[in-house]
């Protein structure tokens, strides 16, 4: 049992925070209930306030202002990390996000930068109900000049966090709630389980998974964050039960749109399915589908299909929530419905 096997995502993020705070003294963390011994609702900041009391601030419940406070710090050369306890609460900060954080650098003609990191957990499947379970990162997709990074449990979470803090642009680091408690399954020897994995991109890389060592594939499934393990379950089922091999592209950078890994895979497979936990309308899949059909129409043998949550609220009761959110079965069915998928 090697230690890396069992390091869970929350530990990896926590260690990265400790290393960042040790390495640089311009990093601050602001958030609700982040002080020890509580250490934050999801324990990502545990131990940090004891080690760096000056730079870890527990805040009032004032998200609308905290986005601005963090932006002000960033404007003045600090590297603030703002922890928003539940991703749903970013709605409170939208004026700051849209009219300030995303605009300052460009509207001030590049005289300033806003090196701000917003860390927030998104996602459901825990029965938290309509206002604590959403995946709202799609709302940020329509905001130019911000960076959205939504890592999966197979990404190098520590490196992504460090990259986000070192980025001069405002970065939203979308962390999936269920991911925290799961092992950070980094590729070993180019594989995660039985799937071969390739990494593309520098700062916020995408991971492409293949069950055939990239020799063949019936479709590409592009996804991110907490949907990855669900998509990998679906892909495994497709392989084991039907010998249908799909490639999976797990993006970590959602904005600016990172299409190269998707196009590269689609060139091999000729078909695309998008999978996201957020609602369908106007989402990540819609944007990817539009771009891919613009750029790779000739590669596609079938229309792009999207897997997403139903357009509605996320109910609290488990069976209702399960019915609302996209499942591995939804992914399997979307792939099976593509033209030219052998079974």
């Amino acid at each position: 049992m090697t230690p890396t096997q069992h390091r869970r995502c929350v530990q990896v993020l926590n260690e990265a925070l400790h290393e960042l705070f040790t390495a640089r003294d311009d990093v601050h963390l602001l958030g609700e209930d982040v002080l020890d011994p509580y250490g934050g609702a999801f324990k990502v900041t545990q131990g940090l306030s004891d080690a760096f009391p000056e730079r870890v601030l527990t805040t009032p419940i004032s998200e609308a202002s905290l986005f601005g406070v963090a932006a002000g710090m960033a404007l003045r050369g600090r590297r603030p990390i703002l922890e928003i306890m539940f991703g749903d609460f970013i709605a409170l900060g939208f004026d700051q996000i849209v009219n300030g954080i995303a605009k300052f650098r460009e509207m001030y003609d590049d005289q300033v930068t806003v090196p701000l990191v917003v860390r927030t957990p998104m996602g459901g499947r825990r029965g938290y109900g309509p206002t604590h379970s959403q995946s709202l990162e799609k709302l940020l997709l329509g905001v130019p000049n911000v960076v959205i990074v939504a890592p999966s449990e197979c990404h190098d979470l520590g490196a992504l966090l460090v990259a986000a803090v070192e980025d001069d642009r405002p970065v939203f680091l979308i962390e999936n709630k269920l991911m925290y408690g799961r092992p950070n399954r980094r590729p070993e020897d180019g594989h995660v389980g039985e799937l071969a994995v390739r990494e593309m991109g520098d700062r916020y890389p995408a991971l492409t998974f293949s069950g055939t060592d990239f020799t063949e594939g019936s479709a590409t499934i592009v996804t991110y964050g907490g949907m990855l393990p669900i998509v990998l379950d679906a892909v495994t089922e497709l392989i084991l039960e039907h010998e249908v091999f799909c490639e999976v592209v797990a993006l970590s950078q959602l904005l600016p749109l990172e299409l190269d890994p998707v196009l590269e895979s689609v060139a091999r497979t000729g078909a695309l399915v998008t999978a996201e936990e957020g609602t369908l309308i106007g989402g990540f899949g819609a944007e990817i589908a539009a771009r891919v059909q613009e750029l790779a129409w000739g590669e596609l043998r079938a229309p792009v299909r999207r897997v997403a949550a139903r357009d509605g609220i996320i109910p609290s009761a488990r069976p209702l929530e399960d019915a609302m959110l996209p499942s591995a079965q939804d992914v399997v069915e979307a792939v099976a419905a593509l033209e030219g998928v052998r079974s």
Partner: protein
Amino acid sequence: MLEIVLTREDANTEFALLAEWLVADRAEVEQGQPVCVVETTKATVEVEAPGAGTIVQLYEDGVEVELGKVVARIAESAEDLASLESGAEAASTKPKRGDGERKATRKAVELAERHGVDLSEIDKRGFVTEKDVEALIARRAADAAPSERPLLAGVSTQGVTLPARFDADGDDGLLEPSFLEYLRTDPASFRALGSEEKCRLLRENGASIGDGVLLGDGSLVAAPRIVLEDGVELGANATILCEEVVAIGSLTRFGPGLELLCRRAFVGAGVWGGRSVRFGGGGHRDPWAVLAVGDLAFVGDETFVNVCRPVLIGREVFLTMRSLIVTHNIGHSVLEGFENRFAPVVLEDRAQVGLGAVIYAGCRIGAEAIVASGSYVTADIAPGAFAIGVPAKVTGSSSHALSPARRVELASRILDDLHELLALGGHEPTALEEGDPRGFEVEGVRVLFTPSFREAVPSPAVVLTLAALAEPSEGVAVLDLVARRVLGSGGEVLEAARELCRKRGIRFEPGPWRYRGRLL
């Protein structure tokens, strides 16, 4: 009985890692003794035994456990322990690390079961698929095969009966180099010669040319080594140009317009080829351009076999007219992501390829499998399968099992059909009295069927049988329908019977055979 439960204390934590058991399974523990280490997102804690007894662990260490679950029970008495041991949560069901991580596909598992293959023999990173199992089966067969043929570059000859002369090292029929040079530089003057003259010149210059070889008008045979056995017949305008060797077995014949271009061509005996048959095409000079056509194969009109990688066609294979075999594709740059495929094709013995069907590079058609007309084969077809469609899919078996009684019935019907055809042709066959063997008489010859031929019958007679157990006497011909041999000799009536059998798929050796009689 006591339970050790991982308690849930925080709304945001649902799983914990059972990091380590501090005591062995079935160990005696004391109350308050630390028994395991559990890590949650919050902390690493030691869990203590709630009381004394024998611990029965329900999880291996190193697994994620949902909070609220019982991870172990403590049996406080022998009865407790006994009931635990017999319960549903016995150790055998304990979730283990890596358990449930099946890596072989359902198809692979099923195929492995059918062939008695142990999947653990497949040492592979990644998923084990049907193809991997097939490869293992083929490898095993190849390992068991008597010898490796070096010029086949690893293509398994399993299931393929190669022509007798298929041999890399033979040296008969080596042609005088200057004569080969003449054939290559002035083929027109050779083509203009008559058959006998061609044979004579070839013989005089080292080629091995058997008796009765017929080289049609305008035909050309050129290769460093040429072996044409007795009775080889090539129709008009045949062109054989091989870079190393051409060897054709006895009684093989091709209709007009044959084109045979490759490095090494070995065509067996009794092969029947139609008109305008082509072997060769792109890459026919490649070192792997090796062609083998097994004895008694049938190659229909206008069949095209592309040979740039080995093409092995087994004994009694049917390539129906216009069927197409390719060993490579053509297309755009491989660096732009287009497929670039060069691969051998193997048709195992008695495989059949229907009208106009296409066999794509890399495919192997198993013995006695049938590819239906118009199909496009992109993957291997298992022996005995019936495949149809574009792309071809297996929909059933190519044949079904017959009972002995049913076989007698079918053979007996051949006699009846022959009787009927002769009657319809106005040859006035007359039925014999009921008896064994039963039959009829036509043009003074009795035609009989008996399941097994054991004793002499009066001549002249033609006897159809499923088992020839005795030698025929003078003037009697016996057709062994199962062994597909003709014993004795006969005239028109024998030929008519043989032709009808051919139409039922029963072809007698030696071939080829063309019906030129007048009765049918």
